[in-house]
């Protein structure tokens, strides 16, 4: 089977543009939406996968699938939920493929050479949180991140994770207790107690 050449693409580009590249948004709308959501989505993907490079890849894949979905959204909020749902499914697929949890928590961001003791303590807290998040089940991780980091409502979380809104509260409570247990474990290992 031969490879598709540049001349093929050039020859087929006009027809493709008409028939196949029917993106759900035009360029201006996409760019505005991307500016509004990309950093949040990257943060979500980075914390869900524990891998910055993978988060970069999945970010573009999520936008591509959104554009190719052909779904019609009556509000940007719906489109945003749909984007996060795509991202969640991508992370789930990735997790199934790897069948392992992130082995080490994401390092690096926000932890560059703290200037004083307070900054060092905050960086250490963040590192503990990432470590604990990485040890949680993917669904618990997503629940906690969406609810407490991004401040999403139960209904929004339900849309993103494909769960009923009514089931979010107990699931969230259990996930929180698991995270709290992991954090206390990491604190007792480190010999410190963090205060809110």
């Amino acid at each position, binding site marked *: *089977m*031969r490879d*598709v*050449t540049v*001349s*093929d*693409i050039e020859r*087929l*580009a006009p*027809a*493709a*543009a008409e*028939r*196949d*590249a029917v*993106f759900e948004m035009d360029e201006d709308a*996409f*760019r505005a939406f*991307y*500016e509004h959501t*990309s*950093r*949040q989505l*990257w*943060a979500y993907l*980075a*914390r869900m996968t524990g891998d910055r490079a993978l988060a*970069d890849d999945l*970010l*573009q894949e999520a*936008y*591509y699938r959104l*554009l*190719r979905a052909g779904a019609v959204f009556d509000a940007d909020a719906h489109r945003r939920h749909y984007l996060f749902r795509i991202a969640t499914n991508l992370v789930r697929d990735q997790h199934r493929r790897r069948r392992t949890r992130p082995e080490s928590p994401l390092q*690096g*961001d*926000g*932890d560059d050479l703290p200037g004083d003791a307070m900054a060092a303590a*905050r960086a250490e*807290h*963040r590192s*503990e*949180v*990432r470590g604990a998040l990485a040890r949680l089940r993917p669904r618990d991780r997503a629940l*906690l*991140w969406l609810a*407490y*980091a*991004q*401040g999403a409502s139960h209904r929004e979380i339900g849309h993103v994770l494909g769960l009923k809104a009514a089931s979010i*509260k107990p699931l969230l*409570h259990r996930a*929180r*207790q698991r995270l*709290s*247990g992991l*954090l206390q474990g990491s604190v007792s290992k480190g010999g410190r107690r*963090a*205060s*809110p």
Partner: protein
Amino acid sequence: MRHPECDREAEVLEALQISAWPDCCADHLRLHVASCRSCTELADIVVRLFDDYRAALRDARVPSSAAVWWRLQMRARQEAARRATRPIAVLQGVALACAAGLLAAAIGLSAPAWRRFAGSLAGWGAGVAATIPSMAWGDVQMFSPLGLSVALTAMLLFVAMSVAVYFAVSEK
């Protein structure tokens, strides 16, 4: 270390998310959080996660929207081109499969003739070695005309198919 949910969690969560905890929060809520295990746990986790979220947002290195749009457009076009050339590739595959099938059939049909030919070659070689001075060409038994024609047809067919596939696959 299970403990029941607190009825005031929603109130505490709202205060944590919209105000600077604990400085800009009502005293009664601060006192409640201090005395409630569930709300203390909630406050601890929300503050930590939100801090990590802000750090992640600050350090997110996402490509520009223009670059992403361009890449996604290119990818859509490549996929469209791939879809458009797929039927050609399928036809090529079918042609190759037909050629392989015909070749196999031809080889199968001509196998007895080939066997006879190989046997006669072996016999001829032995005869030549033994009776070089008095070699009689009429003794050499060649394979049948039918087998020869089938084998030749198969070879011609194979060559013709190869040439056809080459022209179909080549760019020009």
